[in-house]
């Protein structure tokens, strides 16, 4: 099915890699400005307290302090992620809601002075009851963390598609299970940081380590009261994001206010501990599911309840709670589905979006239950999955359209790739093999704020000398490889080698781009890039056709050469003109065919600088029901994985020995980058399955807020990960491409759970699967 491409589908080295390999690539901490001030935050030591008084006089009196800001110094504007849930103030007005809640910010000549000044701010607190769990927060007598949200319910969702009860009545088997997961941290290696500069032209420039320059620009404009045209956000290279960097941070806002106040550049940075305090990472989820099936394995209905421990603010939570339900609509045929989800406020840092947003733990439980159903029906788990799998063209009960779905191919690939047939049921004690599937949106169908805005715009400018092109995009390269992806798409569209394409990205001055989240960039920004490339090519060829006196339809560009069909055409005048212009140069064109360079130069000479644009927004998608905007996407990526584990019965330790991973990305733009996303996803999923848990003490303080105590996978923890790329050709994607960044994490946790069950017989209901938890379960199993 895959088409012949010149650039797309190759393993071209990433454009940013050489500079990243030598230390030349600049991240926010590497860029300094003359006259910088250092900013620091005062954050609450209490998880829940009233603020009775704030006295900043001593801090202001400290030599070297330039400004101190509290709530009364900034406009009282609430912000957040979803406009329907704006519930944050930059600085606490009269109440703090978690350990880390921001109270004040200081700018001083250097960081030690700023930190000293923060210590000198005196705050009088009146402690309030601290609600650390969903149970505490939803108890009858619990105080409300936000007056506007009765009973600490941040969001509640009830949906039913089909008729679940009627379907259960026809089922031969009803399977029920529950699952609990712990909150996770994004653990990107570069902590958030920013520098804000206020110019005398009235323009605020914020350099920030973010995934979403556009949303940061909007939030900063809204909260400071500046116009969008007066706020520019620039993203240098970013050291990973994975979701938690997908909204404006308090330091983005505080540095902006301090820069406006002082007129000097203000730098603010989170320490690693503050990264944990800010969080906005994976929620803790509790799921309960009841699944009905027929004797032959046909899945009939799902009844699903979820509770999300949200922390103190909404952040992305409203989307998270919808995703936790909607993403179970596929990839299996499931005609009836009921979902009740709620997100509860607690006095902990706010949770937000993290790779596989909302869907990861729901998927884990569902896939675990499928294995149990298969076993009870005497079927192989793969057989059960294949029996129920949707196909290209199917639409889920909640209106998600599978415009391409290489799920069967993924399953077959991991089945043969892992040697499933020789292993399943034939492994020695302690060894287990398990599989699971998953899928994810390829870009959110709607922006975070209600708008008809394009989701991305692209500008491609040809060099005046014709030698190459530059793609200008406001999209966010955060490590995933989007700059190279856009360069490859532009090269393919225009018909020139990759070396002739440069990309400038991450600057709101370059246009609109909603940013790097919901696995949207390849499909959406890719579409806009392709359109701009097509337009640029048309401009060049039109001019050339006019000059040659032939129809433009006879012309094409391939590998940087002009292809002329329908008989020879004399282009010697163009070549002679070009050569005369470059007398004395060493690289005069000599090819039999006219080059892109000559044609693009000619187009410049005839029409001035050549700029082509492209844009993209998805067509109107999905259902009409409440919440239909979350989960609808122009396309869906999907994957299957087989995990092989070894469980030590003495210690409870699980070693994942091998993972076979197949992902349908529609069409790989860069094969190496697709595998890289798959492997990165497996490592994050493995960490979540086995180690990762943010822990709190009774006062709501995080007790493992470091990368030493919060264990993410090291190279020693990683198994061999075998990647198989499936290409189903997505009709709604540029050159057939769709996502890989997040769908790839979906099967990892359940594949491990199923492998552990295969090894031990244990149905584990709680992650992470620490040795202690597994050991206790084994002990209980032995006793029983």
């Amino acid at each position, binding site marked *: 099915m895959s088409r012949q491409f010149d650039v797309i589908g190759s393993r071209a080295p990433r454009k*940013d*890699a*050489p500079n990243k390999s030598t230390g030349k690539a600049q991240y926010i901490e590497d860029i300094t400005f003359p006259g910088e001030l250092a900013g620091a935050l005062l954050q609450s030591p209490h998880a829940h307290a009233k603020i009775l008084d704030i006295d900043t006089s001593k801090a202001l009196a400290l030599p070297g302090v330039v400004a101190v800001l509290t709530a009364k110094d900034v406009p009282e504007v609430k912000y957040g992620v979803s406009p329907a849930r704006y519930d944050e103030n930059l600085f606490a007005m009269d109440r703090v809601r978690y350990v880390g809640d921001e109270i004040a910010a200081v700018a001083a000549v250097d960081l030690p002075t700023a930190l000293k000044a923060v210590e000198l701010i005196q705050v009088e607190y009146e402690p309030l009851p601290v609600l650390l769990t969903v149970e505490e927060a939803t108890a009858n007598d619990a105080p409300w963390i936000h007056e506007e949200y009765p009973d600490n319910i941040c969001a509640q969702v009830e949906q039913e598609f089909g008729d679940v009860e009627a379907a259960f009545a026809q089922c031969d088997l009803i399977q029920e299970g529950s699952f609990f997961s712990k909150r996770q941290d994004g653990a990107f290696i570069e902590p958030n940081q920013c520098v804000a500069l206020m110019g005398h032209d009235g323009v605020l420039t914020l350099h920030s380590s973010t995934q979403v320059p556009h949303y940061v620009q909007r939030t900063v404009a809204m909260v400071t009261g500046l116009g969008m045209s007066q706020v520019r956000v620039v993203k240098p290279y970013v050291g990973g994001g994975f979701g938690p960097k997908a909204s404006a941070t308090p330091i983005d806002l505080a540095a902006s206010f301090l820069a406006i106040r002082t007129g000097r550049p203000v730098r603010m940075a989170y320490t690693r501990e503050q990264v944990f305090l800010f969080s906005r990472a994976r929620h803790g989820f509790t799921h309960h599911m009841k699944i009905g099936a027929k004797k032959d394995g046909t899945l009939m209905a799902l009844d699903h309840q979820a509770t999300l421990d949200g922390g103190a603010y909404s952040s992305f939570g409203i989307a998270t709670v919808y995703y936790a339900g909607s993403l179970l609509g596929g990839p299996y045929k499931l005609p009836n589905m009921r979902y009740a989800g709620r997100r509860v406020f607690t006095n902990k840092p706010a949770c937000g979006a993290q790779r596989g947003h909302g869907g990861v733990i729901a998927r884990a439980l569902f896939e675990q239950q499928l294995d149990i159903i298969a076993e009870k029906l005497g079927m192989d788990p793969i057989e059960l999955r294949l029996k129920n799998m949707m196909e290209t063209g199917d639409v889920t009960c909640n209106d998600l359209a599978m415009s391409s779905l290489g799920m069967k191919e993924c399953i077959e690939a991991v089945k043969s790739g892992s040697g499933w047939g020789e292993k399943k049921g034939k492994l020695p004690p302690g060894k287990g093999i398990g599989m699971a599937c998953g899928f994810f949106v390829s870009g959110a169908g709607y922006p975070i704020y209600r708008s008809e805005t394009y989701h991305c715009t692209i500008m491609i400018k040809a060099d005046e000398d014709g030698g190459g092109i530059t793609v200008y995009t406001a999209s966010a390269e955060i490590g995933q490889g989007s700059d190279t992806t856009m360069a490859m798409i532009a090269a393919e569209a225009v018909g020139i080698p990759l070396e002739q394409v440069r990309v400038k990205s991450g600057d709101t001055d370059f246009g609109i781009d909603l940013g790097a989240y919901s696995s949207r960039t390849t499909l959406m920004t890719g579409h806009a890039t392709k359109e701009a490339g097509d337009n640029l090519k048309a401009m060049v060829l039109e001019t050339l056709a006019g000059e040659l006196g032939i129809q433009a339809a006879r012309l094409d560009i391939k590998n940087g050469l002009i292809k002329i069909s329908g008989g020879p055409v004399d282009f010697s005048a163009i070549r002679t003109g070009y050569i005369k212009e470059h007398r004395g140069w060493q690289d005069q064109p000599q090819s039999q065919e006219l080059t892109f360079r000559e044609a693009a130069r000619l187009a410049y000479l005839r029409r001035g600088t050549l700029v082509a644009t492209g844009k993209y927004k998805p067509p109107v998608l999905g259902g009409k029901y409440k919440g239909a905007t979350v989960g609808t996407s122009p396309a869906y990526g999907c994957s299957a994985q087989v995990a092989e584990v070894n469980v030590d019965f003495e210690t409870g330790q699980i070693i994942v020995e091998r993972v076979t991973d197949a992902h349908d990305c529609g069409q790989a733009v860069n094969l*190496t980058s697709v595998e890289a996303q798959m492997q990165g996803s497996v490592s994050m999923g493995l960490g979540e399955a086995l180690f990762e848990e943010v822990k709190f003490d009774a006062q709501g303080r995080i007790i493992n807020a470091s990368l030493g105590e919060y264990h993410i996978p090291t190279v020693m923890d990683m198994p061999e990960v075998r990647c198989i790329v499936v290409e189903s050709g997505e009709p709604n994607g540029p050159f057939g491409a769709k996502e890989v960044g997040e769908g790839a994490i979906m099967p990892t946790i359940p594949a491990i759970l199923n492998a552990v069950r295969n090894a031990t017989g244990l149905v584990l209901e709680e992650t992470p699967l620490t040795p202690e938890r597994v050991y206790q379960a084994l002990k209980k199993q032995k006793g029983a």
Partner: protein
Amino acid sequence: MSKLAISLTVNGVQRQALVEPNQTLTSLLRDELNLTGTKHGCGVGDCGCCTVILDGETVNSCLVLAVQAQGREVMTIEGLAQGIRLHPLQQAFVDHGAIQCGFCTPGMILSAKALLDRTPQPTRAEITKGLSGNLCRCTGYEKIVEAVQDAAGKMERG
């Protein structure tokens, strides 16, 4: 606090600097010598992205005081390439797609360099041990291990 004068060799060049007694080697390299390829991810020895080679051994430069580098030899990521020609390890990281966000990369490459200096033909287990102090959240490490294996082969062949 009064500053202390120190002298050390950085990437083969003799350097002098005035440092605070409590200033870290990371800060000396980044803030005084403007060698910003050394990254700063945690400041407490957990992540490894501040890794440099001190007298042939890798250290987390955030855990080393600048004054401890007095009279010693430091190699940072800036010391590897020859002009615009990448070191074979750097080239292998580029070729194998072992670099995503790149924030761990300088430390990772220096750990690999120290490993190959000691053990020119490491086994997979030796590679994973040699890189175990360097966290990477993006890659899942597979392509990094492949890059080191490839570079080892190429360097051996010259």
